[in-house]
């Protein structure tokens, strides 16, 4: 279960209408939160994610939308305060999401992870789902060598590594 999915399940129980997040963490610290707006239409749900430096799409978001729509039906707005979601637990530890609402807007989302051991606390959020556009792009000019799935001698001829070797020869 991904961190984002864990947070999704925890947040759903808070009954929050609009929520998105970015989990970008290092050494167990939750480093970033995002602001999200969700509009609920008739019969279907549209999720628009507005963030400073990230977007969330894909299967996980769809799952989140479906779980929070039920809550949305009974919620007319956001009440100011700090809300702590139900703790989601898996075999590596647990995640508790806390949401802060001020003036009807979400101002902060934090995900506290408690792990079965200290090392898990660090790694729980280390490798996170991202979009292709969020991954560090290669600077072709500075590439020394290329890592990829094992190529055969025949396939090597048309590989990027072959091009690098040729260029240096």
């Amino acid at each position, binding site marked *: 279960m991904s961190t984002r999915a864990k947070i999704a399940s925890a947040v759903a129980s808070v009954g929050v209408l609009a929520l998105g997040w970015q989990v970008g963490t290092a050494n167990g610290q939750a480093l970033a939160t995002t602001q999200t707006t969700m509009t609920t239409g008739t019969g279907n749900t549209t999720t628009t994610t507005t963030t400073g430096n990230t977007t969330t799409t894909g299967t996980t978001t769809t799952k989140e939308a479906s779980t929070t729509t039920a809550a949305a039906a009974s919620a007319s707005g956001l009440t100011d305060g700090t809300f702590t979601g139900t703790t989601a637990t898996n075999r590596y530890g647990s995640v508790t999401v806390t949401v802060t609402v001020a003036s009807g807007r979400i101002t902060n989302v934090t995900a506290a992870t408690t792990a079965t051991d200290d090392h898990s606390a660090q*790694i729980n959020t280390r490798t996170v789902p991202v979009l292709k556009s969020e991954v560090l792009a290669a600077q072709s000019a500075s590439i020394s060598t290329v890592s990829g799935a094992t*190529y055969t001698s025949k396939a090597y001829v048309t590989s990027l590594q072959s091009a690098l070797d040729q260029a240096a020869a």
Partner: protein
Amino acid sequence: MDRFVFEAMGTVVSVQAATISDAARRDLRRVFGDLEDRFTLYRPDSEASAVARRDLLVPHASPEYRRVYDLAVDWRERTDGSFTPHRPDGVIDLSGIVKALAIAGSADVLDAAGLDRWCINAGGDVLVSGTQDDGNPWVVGIVDPDDRTALLSQYSAPGRRAVATSGTAERGEHVWRTGANATFGQVTVVADDIVTADVLATAILAGGPDALEHAQRNWSIEVLACASDGRLWASPVFHAERTPAASAEQTPTASEDAVG
């Protein structure tokens, strides 16, 4: 830099170093050649083929064979079975770990030759040491699994690091799955040594997100995993606009902006 490119183990090996002497070239070929002779399944006269046919039982195999077999079984235990030397048809296939051992052996050759700046790439698995000639770090490009002529990302190595990629793109589904997990189509792992990087890349490819979590919990590694449906899982080192050194300062600012 000097560059030595040769064929071994059904793929191509590229070695870069300041100067690679004829003796070092012979030794590099021998490291790969000796392991290939013993462990190839493509030649019926190899020891591995004899074991595969059950003409030779593992307990009666050579010490060299059993050392590698035991190492692979150790890794099977350590990865909860995600990495395994046993194919579904029962054949013992050590070729993955053998290539990693050949890279490690090549590193020994270069170290023994007094070289401290070098880069070894064997069929897409990479081990680097030191820096390039000009003092800049070795930069390892990572192939885009959707387009093998393009790069998905890169990794700048701060000293000796191993970068191994396992995937289904080049040789087909040569990595057999432990379960029905086909979440990932390509997995790159950065580790301190090439055997760890190679084994864990294979384990995560085979075992999916559970294996990824298990690997992250037990080893100090960086991971870039590409799901078959286009999703990616990435360690912070692979995130755009967040160099490892700057991320601690930049990110809180970014989050405040996002909230405001």
